[in-house]
């Protein structure tokens, strides 16, 4: 009995690995992240600089918030891309016919988005250090926050990306649906970064707890609900 459950779990994660590898291979070949999403994210950082009159002290103070707003905007593109992969050449039909569990597909796609977000976050972190003059006061908190927030964004984004796909006006629908749900991630990650970048005196580790709970709930809910999304 236990063996069967272990085997099922192993199969779940092996299949998820296959889906993630496929999505990342498509990304490596098309280079949408590197050629379009990453330059867009850096452009947003620069535009914030212009909007705030290139005052480095102001930019340093608001860097955590600007960083996470940029991540969310770039995540929208990454999620849209991840969902559109399934609709190109009717790939989602092939995926359904493969017999993989919906949870495996969800975890695989979310893992691929997560890895792409981590790459983006590293680039953006370099961006705020160079452009805004931010200092990495607490690198450990910074790294753990980046990972926890990326889990929440990737899992929620993957669920909502599938939800908006296949509907008319999906490109405008996704931001309206996804961004309010990600508001707790924006708040938690910004407060935690406030601590990690020394921008404000807050307890970043407490906010990290919120991010961890959000990530966990989003992963479980996403794995359960994804099946209903890809029924059609």
């Amino acid at each position: 009995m236990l063996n069967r459950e272990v085997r099922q779990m192993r199969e779940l994660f092996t299949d998820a690995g296959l889906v993630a590898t496929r999505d990342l291979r498509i990304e490596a070949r098309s280079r949408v992240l590197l050629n379009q999403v990453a330059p867009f994210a850096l452009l947003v950082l620069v535009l914030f600089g212009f909007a705030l009159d290139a005052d480095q002290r102001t930019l340093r103070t608001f860097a955590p918030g600007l960083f996470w707003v940029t991540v969310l905007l770039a995540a929208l593109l990454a999620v849209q891309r991840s969902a559109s992969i399934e609709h190109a050449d009717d790939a989602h039909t092939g995926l359904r016919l493969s017999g993989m569990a919906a949870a495996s597909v969800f975890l695989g796609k979310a893992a691929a988005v997560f890895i792409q977000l981590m790459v983006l976050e590293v680039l953006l972190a370099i961006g705020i250090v160079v452009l805004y003059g931010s200092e990495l006061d607490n690198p450990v908190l910074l790294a753990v926050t980046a990972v926890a927030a990326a889990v929440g964004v990737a899992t929620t984004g993957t669920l909502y990306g599938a939800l908006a796909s296949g509907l008319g006006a999906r490109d405008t629908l996704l931001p309206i649906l996804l961004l309010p749900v990600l508001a707790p991630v924006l708040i938690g990650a910004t407060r935690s970064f406030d601590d990690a970048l020394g921008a404000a005196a807050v307890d970043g580790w407490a906010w990290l707890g919120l991010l961890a709970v959000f990530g966990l709930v989003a992963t479980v809910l996403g794995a359960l609900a994804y099946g209903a999304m890809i029924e059609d």
Partner: protein
Amino acid sequence: MVDTTTTTASPGSRLLGLTTLVGLAGLILFAFVLTEPDVRLHPTTGEEFGQFDAVRLLYLHVPMAVLTYAAFLTCAVASAGYLLKRRPWWDVTAHASAEVGTVFCGLVLVTGSIWGRPVWNTWWEWGDVRLMTTLVLFLLFTGYLALRRTPAEPQRQARRAAIVALVAVLDIPLINRSVEWWENRTLHQQSTLAELKIEDLTLFTLMLGLVVFGLVFAWLMLHRFRVGWLEHAQAGHEVALAIAERHAEMETLDVDAAIGRTGGAR
């Protein structure tokens, strides 16, 4: 059988509407005339302080907030019901309650903001957790309604809307408990109803507000549900009509001539 209903009203709903109107008149009388303004005297300086006439807005604001929860919880239950049973009744109920709830939620934000100007000295307080979580709830259901207005195959749309509603409704416990969980991050007062810290007439008017807005909610739900049900019936009717037209075309077709032409082509 074709449903030829042209109105969403019925004798029962008219009676409910009339009762609601009488109730609203009574509520206005109590809230704006019979109850006293909130004026207190400072124990040491003797200066007047309190919410003054602004407190009257709370007789509308608080019941609407409660009905917002009720509407969104109805939407969540109906959404779960749809995912389990896949019956259109659940879906139409979820859609109707989400629309009514979004209107109530918007009014809660507006009345709260108007009340906040004289009492908190600001239209909007970014640091208030309950305010922020309520705004997020409003935005979540605005997204839900946007999804509802997107052209899509009905079952697919219903299934996806149900999941959006079930996720969105998770915000309600956060709003409800925010005044206890983040005491120092909110200007909203903690629950006074449960401990009966407020005076008799005030409490009565608040309860009257709950009943009256409950009637408004029921009346709106009834009509919105009926509109949704008619839309659903019309969609089914159009499909049935198209099938009947195809059948009629087949029956009037000159079959022999068609076979002859096909045979000739060979």
